[in-house]
């Protein structure tokens, strides 16, 4: 068998930790090869070594059989290796084209030949069925399109070995579908792909083989056709994992959150939420399904006080909470697990312990008459860290040093512990491994069973289907249909999310 990539006995250390320890990865020409492992297992590190961002301490790399030394991304490009990074490597203020050509610009008389570049980009995107607008600014386009720009970047540089690091974590189901199609196209063109994902379903659907790493060590490579998701999960975690979240039927009670005819504009003044109505009762989880950009973010920001609502009302119990400050909303009994945990959820330069009291620091026992009581704060934090299994050396460690999964667990611990009436969870499991997801889902259901109202926003249909007791489909700024998870299926939801309410898809 012909290998395009052979990474042999790779070892990579960071101060105080061995991120990759004796890992071997062989990728065949024309295959989609999955790389699977828990958060922090060392997948991104391994790929960064292949892409020339890190230098391995030991081991060798062969590209198409020839031993090579990849010292920087330029060398990787020269060997035909391209990478789509876990966190997008795009300059927000540049256009799509500028981002793609950056570093290898077509020139005309010393200037960037932007016309020619745009044409090339348009052609490339046509060729691979990637729909992008070459002259749009990155900050104005959807995450899905940003991802396609990342792919174009590699193709533009003539890569035929592509690394995708968790490309689907930020995509909507539609976008994931499109991405899978794109990957299949690429393979058809003779390219090879390494795919990192936490979603076993995707591995089963598109990958040929799968290499599993656990805590920095290679566990082995399996043929996907000869394995099951359960086996993969067990390999990855080193124990059995249950997938479908076990839960009893909901016991909805009185209405806690009631939204009536809500209108919200986004930062640029465009109407995003248009006359939305929604009730959430105590003891139930309402999942909002929808394609990103249909007003979900604005809805949540309006409810939590981060954004002004133009008209309509939001009631929590009998109390109007529309256009209150975030502090007042919080005090009224709302918790919020924000979509973007780095931007909103945490002060990364604060110790994790102080992040645990980010909304409650001014209250006893964390402070008294304006003076902080750090003893009480850190006691509380340590309890939460224990209870929510946040893996950190101690409560004094900066939040920045924690992995994404553990940061998320810390936020959830903080939000749930306030015993709110309403929990708003926006994409609470984004980018997390199955173990962490399992934990978080369990927590949400526990809270529901304690009689809390939970509003869940997620772009993962699986999550919506498994966790929600009621699904509200959001399209173009309003809820166009509410369905029970047991009465629907993915196709129907997909159609609804596309705004298609007319026909009832497939008799379930």
């Amino acid at each position: 068998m012909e290998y395009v990539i052979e990474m042999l006995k790779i070892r990579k250390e960071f101060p105080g930790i061995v991120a990759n320890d004796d890992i071997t990865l062989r990728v065949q020409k024309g295959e989609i090869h999955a790389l699977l492992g828990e958060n922090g297992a060392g997948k991104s590190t391994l790929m960064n070594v292949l892409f020339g961002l890190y230098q391995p301490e030991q081991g060798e790399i062969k590209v198409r059989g020839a031993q090579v030394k990849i010292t920087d991304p330029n060398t990787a490009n020269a060997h035909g290796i391209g990478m789509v990074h876990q966190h997008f490597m795009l300059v927000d203020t540049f256009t799509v084209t500028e981002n793609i050509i950056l570093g290898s610009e077509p020139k005309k008389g010393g200037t960037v030949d932007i016309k020619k570049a745009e044409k090339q980009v348009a052609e490339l995107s046509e060729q691979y069925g990637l729909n992008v607008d070459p002259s749009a600014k990155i900050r104005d386009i959807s995450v899905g399109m940003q991802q396609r720009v990342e792919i174009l970047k590699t193709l533009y540089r003539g890569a035929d070995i592509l690394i995708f690091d968790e490309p689907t974590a930020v995509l909507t189901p539609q976008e994931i579908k499109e991405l899978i199609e794109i990957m299949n196209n690429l393979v058809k063109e003779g390219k090879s792909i390494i795919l990192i994902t936490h979603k076993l379903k995707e591995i089963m659907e598109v990958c040929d083989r799968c290499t599993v790493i656990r805590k920095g060590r290679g566990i082995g490579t399996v043929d996907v056709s000869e394995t099951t998701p359960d086996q993969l999960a067990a390999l990855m975690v080193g124990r059995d994992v249950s997938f479908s979240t076990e839960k009893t039927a909901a016991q909805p009670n009185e209405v806690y959150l009631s939204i009536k005819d809500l209108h919200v504009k986004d930062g640029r003044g465009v109407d995003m939420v248009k006359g939305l109505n929604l009730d959430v009762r105590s003891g139930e989880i309402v999942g909002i399904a929808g394609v990103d950009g249909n007003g979900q973010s604005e809805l949540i920001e309006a409810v939590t006080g981060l954004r002004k609502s133009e008209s309509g009302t939001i009631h929590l119990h009998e109390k109007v909470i529309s256009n209150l400050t975030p502090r007042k909303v919080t005090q009224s009994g709302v918790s919020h697990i924000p979509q973007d945990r780095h931007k909103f959820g945490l002060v990364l330069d604060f110790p994790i312990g102080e992040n645990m009291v980010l909304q409650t620091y001014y209250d006893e026992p964390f402070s008294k008459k304006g003076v902080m009581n750090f003893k009480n704060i850190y006691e509380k934090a340590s309890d939460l860290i224990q209870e929510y299994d946040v893996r950190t050396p101690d409560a004094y460690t900066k939040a920045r040093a924690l992995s994404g999964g553990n940061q998320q667990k810390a936020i959830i611990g903080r939000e749930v512990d306030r015993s709110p009436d309403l929990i708003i969870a926006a994409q609470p499991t984004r980018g997390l491994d199955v173990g962490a997801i399992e934990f978080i889902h369990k927590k949400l259901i526990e809270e529901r069973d304690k009689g809390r109202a939970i509003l869940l926003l997620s772009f993962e249909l699986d999550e919506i289907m498994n966790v929600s007791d009621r699904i509200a489909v959001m399209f173009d700024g309003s809820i166009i249909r509410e369905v029970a998870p047991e009465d629907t299926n993915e196709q129907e939801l997909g159609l609804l999310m596309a705004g298609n309410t007319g026909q009832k898809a497939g008799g379930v």
Partner: protein
Amino acid sequence: MEFIEVFSRILGSAVIFATPLIFTALGGVFSERSGVINIGLEGLMIMGAFVGIVFNLTFHTVFGAATPWISMLAAVIVSALFSLVHAAASITFRADQVVSGVAINFLALGIGLFLTKQWYDKGQTDFIKQPFYSSDVPVFNNIPIVGEMLFSGWYWTSYLAIAMAFAAWFVLYKTPFGLRLRSVGEHPMAADTNGIHVYRMRYIGVMISGALGGLGGSVYAMTVALNFSHGTILGQGFISLAAVIFGKWHPLGALGAAIFFGFAQSLSIVSSDIAFLEDVPSVFMLIAPYVLTILALAGFIGRAEAPKSLGEAYIKGNR
């Protein structure tokens, strides 16, 4: 028409005031666009003024009328090299960029005055013998109105400054180099994964600011101050920094901001001739330029977006 005469007078002195600021602010734009805060502009100007004056004094008999131009070049080179200190500290050694810039200001003044004392045995130099002189642009100065306003009695350095602003715009927004420089200031890791040498680009950005800051300082010294002392550059670097931000980190914006300052300054001087302002206490005229700037910012310039990773050291492999 009298109005035109008054206006061209105001414009003339506004441009003289603005010229060194334009150069220096353009330098600031390059540095900050590459992601390195440059509070050291003041120090870079001091270095430029010092080198320009010393060179001029030393070589005026050799180079004759070309002396100021060659002195200017010397200032550009030395200041660019001097800015390497800021570059090394803030890029390679990951120093806090504000700290490093402040140190540049101290260092430049210290070196300038120390060497003046060593070389001339006094606290300030003599007057240079070959300063820049203003002149008329032949042919163009005969154009009615415009000729008087724009082509009479200006310094060549002022035209150079304005040309430089457009050149900077061209370089930053039309060339591969500019695209790369800006990418490094916005998202260095993205640039790195695209094979751009982040450190090299930032060094270049800072050195350009050194070169242009030195240019600004030397032009100031050789048109207005005519010698070097502890008081030659007093705050012009900070005003230039303000122009960078006022101009929203855009070369043409910086140009506009610098000219705005110039106008505000010369208006406050000419205003003593304007009848209805005659009785206004002079303090109001003195503070007018600064108040106007604040009002302009508050009124219609508003929020400016700095380059995203401005002030952050890039550490390879860090997220």
